[in-house]
């Protein structure tokens, strides 16, 4: 199952949209850098239900409060997510 990693803010370009177009149930989604802005209101940005993560440090840096549906993780948990998934796909710019 794929781990999708997005680093672009939800309306800053097509990364989120392209990613969601390739998302299959059972995949995991990780929001990093500017993508954590989507984590405040996941429903509004049509994020999938379940298996949505965000880097807590990146959210904290931007003053973003994670919605309940989004699991905040640290870098160690990110490594674990990578171990648990193949392939890993980055969506950026």
């Amino acid at each position, binding site marked *: *199952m*794929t781990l999708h990693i997005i680093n672009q803010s939800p309306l800053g370009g*097509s990364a989120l949209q*392209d990613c969601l*177009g*390739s*998302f*299959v149930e059972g*995949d995991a989604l990780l929001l990093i850098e500017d993508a954590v802005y989507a984590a405040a209101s996941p429903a509004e940005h049509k994020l999938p239900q379940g298996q949505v993560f965000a880097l807590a440090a990146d959210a904290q840096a931007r003053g973003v409060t994670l919605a309940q549906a989004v699991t905040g993780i640290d870098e160690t948990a990110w490594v674990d997510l990578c171990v648990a998934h*193949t*392939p*890993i*796909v*980055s*969506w*950026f*710019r």
Partner: protein
Amino acid sequence: MAKSILALCRHAPYGNALAREGLEAILACAAMDQVPSVLFSGDGVYQLLEQDPVAINEKSLRRNLQALPMFGIEHIHVCRKSADARGIAADTLQLAGAEIVLLADTGPFIRGFDQVLSF
């Protein structure tokens, strides 16, 4: 054990160096006998349209793409939703010597690979 590799190309030609440098990486993998599959998605679909960049002093990326079959890459996968969203008709997507494969659903396709190189 060797891994199956997908190159995911999401950038339009010329505006971002990653379009050309992505292709260079694909060709290098193929030259090393690690022939990747290639998927054009998002703005990457624009790479496959006719181009004439002489006036902006650029080399034609599409000409370079036409070398893919020479490197052993004969199937070019294209995200159908991306093409549709940009008003690109399927029959305008052609590359000499290659077969264009339109994918209605890229998710399951991506899942089939060990590694994805994003460009």
